[in-house]
């Protein structure tokens, strides 16, 4: 149950079992060019720790289970983007328990009068489909607001004890381990970090039960079972597609 009226970051340290001084958000490296204001605002205004890494899947990872994608309103309005968007969000749903889309108003260049954008049936249809799919939608009018929303989401997830609590920059041997874990399908960057941190070696991970994996990697049970199956999967070279790897449509 969320506790209303816990607005400041100062309130965080009062939560028992907390070791990190500030909230952490993982940002995809592409966001450096497409959302520089978001990242600098998160750091400078809100005092969050932002770790830029190559996430690939989503724009931001806010907690162990929540991924946030930033889309422009124009992307939702043009039918040409439909396939790209739905593929992206479907993939995210395979990896994360919760997904949030921040719909950001497109920037209008000064001096250019904005086209009177008629709200289309198509746009309403997309919103309805997102709602029906259980994807959370937030609306933002600029990058600064998006940053504020990300902070709110991170705070909320922290209160629900799902915040990212592990060091986000593994060193030395751990970096190799991380890249190994990242190659496992449907495993999020956050879960891979948790695996690095909670288990001493791959052998320890491979010999763990589904329940132990769920606890150690902070994964949901079905996801942990999926990981468990993957590690125990009996390799059959006959099933290897030739030529490698044929993407299904």
């Amino acid at each position: 149950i969320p506790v209303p009226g816990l607005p400041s970051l100062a309130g965080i340290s009062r939560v028992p079992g907390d070791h990190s001084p500030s909230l952490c958000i993982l940002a995809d490296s592409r966001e450096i060019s497409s959302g520089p204001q978001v990242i600098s605002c998160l750091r400078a205004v809100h005092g969050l720790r932002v770790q830029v890494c190559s996430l690939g899947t989503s724009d931001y990872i806010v907690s162990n289970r929540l991924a946030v994608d930033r889309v422009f309103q124009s992307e939702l309005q043009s039918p040409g983007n439909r396939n790209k968007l739905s593929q992206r969000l479907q993939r995210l749903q395979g990896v994360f328990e919760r997904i949030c889309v921040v719909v950001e108003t497109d920037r209008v260049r000064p001096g250019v009068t904005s086209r009177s954008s008629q709200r289309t049936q198509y746009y309403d249809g997309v919103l309805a489909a997102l709602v029906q799919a259980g994807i959370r939608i937030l609306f933002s009018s600029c990058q600064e607001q998006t940053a504020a929303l990300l902070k709110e989401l991170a705070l909320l997830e922290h209160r629900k004890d799902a915040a990212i609590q592990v060091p986000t920059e593994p060193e030395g041997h751990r970096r190799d381990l991380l890249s190994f874990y990242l190659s496992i399908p449907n495993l999020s960057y956050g879960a891979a970090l948790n695996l690095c941190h909670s288990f001493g070696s791959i052998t320890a991970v491979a010999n763990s039960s589904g329940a132990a994996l769920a606890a150690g990697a902070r994964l949901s049970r079905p996801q942990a079972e999926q990981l468990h199956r993957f590690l125990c999967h009996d390799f059959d070279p006959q099933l290897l597609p030739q030529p490698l790897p044929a993407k299904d449509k």
Partner: protein
Amino acid sequence: VTAGSIVVPYGHVIGNEKWRGSEIAQRLQGKVRLIFEDGLGLVDFHLSNRTCILLISEADLVAGDEFKRRLVRFRNGSSLRGIVIVEKTQISDQYYLGVQKLVVLELGMVLLPVANQGEASQLIIQLVREQSRAGGANPFVHRQRAGPAEPAVLQAVLHIPGVGRTKALLLLQRFGSIRRLCNAPVSELEHVVGQTVAQQIYTF
């Protein structure tokens, strides 16, 4: 608080009596089958047995906090999925962030902004269409695809230092799964790959 079991016939929308004759009702009529009912309480429209809509007008936003009490009462008193549609105009824009924080982040409901009642009716029509569509047609619902895991397993093994494609295939043929590969002693690894690489794999 009435937010109880309302049975909505397929393809129908049940509207609160207070919307009879309004612009939004007029625009809905003809597109969806609209039935008016008294005593819906806090709810403005029922889309299905499980989903309903609460409308917040520009005037509600400007008038103060009454609409917040209404939302909280709805949230506490009902197990229905509530979609809140809010009129976001030039005047009410300043309140939007606060409303969004309350509705989406604190109450965990859905919030969709529209510019006027006309847009609201368009949106409701699309929501009804989406509700009555078969689940498989939604482009954003994840479907599990169970392709063979072999390529992925091979990719993962390739991330072990010192292991390329040839060695990865040999290792997997010998040991079968990543789990058994992990538990293999150095001596057995040496049967497949050279001493140095076997040691490398073992330490990894």
